[in-house]
């Protein structure tokens, strides 16, 4: 499923504390910080997944990395990385991050999005999953911009979580579109009783989109790659 990248209405929700500075747009500022994170990772000869693995030489299927999933975004967001085989997973995917945020700003967690990573620790796709896959509270698409604003306004933390934070911020419109596409698919599959979809184990993915971080950064800075 391909989600449209046309959420122009979302652009009114740019957090007030993250106004453009020094000639950079909001997105360029986030992109600069992400590239800064990557520069630090490059200096340490690591990447976000290797940081999450924390030296593990072999990866156990379904094991969460880190064991206690990350907190970030002023404790309003969580994430972990894991790998597992499944018939419906792309062969080129090493594993994926799962991102959660607080449901209704409370103590329960909702799955927002997952991000597939290739064998070299680079993001390849974003996808949403059915509720049985992740458990927790169902995350409503309408809550997303509130939670992404919380993230945008949050203090930076560790290198690994800052990388996750800025990737989420840079792909927020794609994620929002995927959540809307997810909800539309649930409605199409179960027009009368949508809650029945949540437990249907024949439905794993609800929406997905390939992503290219390099292209996203180039687009944000108005740069074009040589052909």
């Amino acid at each position: 499923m391909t989600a449209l990248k046309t959420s122009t209405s979302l652009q009114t929700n740019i957090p007030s504390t993250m106004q453009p500075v020094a000639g950079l747009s909001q997105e360029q500022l986030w992109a600069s910080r992400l590239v800064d994170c990557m520069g630090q990772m490059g200096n340490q000869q690591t990447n976000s997944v290797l940081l999450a693995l924390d030296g593990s030489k072999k990866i156990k299927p379904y094991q969460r990395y880190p064991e206690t999933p990350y907190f970030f975004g002023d404790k309003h967001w969580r994430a972990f990385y894991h790998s597992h085989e499944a018939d419906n997973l792309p062969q080129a995917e090493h594993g994926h991050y799962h991102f959660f945020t607080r449901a209704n700003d409370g103590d329960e967690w909702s799955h927002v999005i997952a991000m597939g990573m290739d064998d070299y620790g680079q993001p390849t796709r974003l996808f949403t999953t059915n509720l049985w896959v992740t458990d927790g509270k169902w995350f409503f698409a309408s809550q997303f911009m509130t939670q992404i604003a919380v993230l945008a306004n949050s203090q930076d933390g560790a290198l690994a979580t800052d990388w996750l934070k800025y990737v989420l911020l840079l792909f927020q419109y794609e994620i929002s579109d995927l959540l809307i596409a997810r909800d539309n698919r649930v409605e199409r599959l179960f027009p009368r009783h949508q809650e029945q979809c949540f437990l249907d184990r024949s439905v794993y993915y609800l929406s997905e989109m390939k992503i290219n971080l390099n292209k996203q950064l180039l687009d944000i800075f108005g740069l074009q790659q040589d052909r």
Partner: protein
Amino acid sequence: MKHKTGKVIMGATLSLAAIAVAIDHTQHKLPEVETITSDEQDMMDSGTPCGLGVAPCSLGEESDSLED
């Protein structure tokens, strides 16, 4: 040899090369994933590994309060 710093000077726009280098320098081969046994896979497919009913992609723990 000492690596050059990857620090971005805020206020300066990034070049195509700087972005390419930043991404390239974070490309490192990830460790292999161990093979899962069929029993383990069946357990995960049922969403209740060890009978605790933990979903395969959940946070796998109690919720943490903001009041911590």
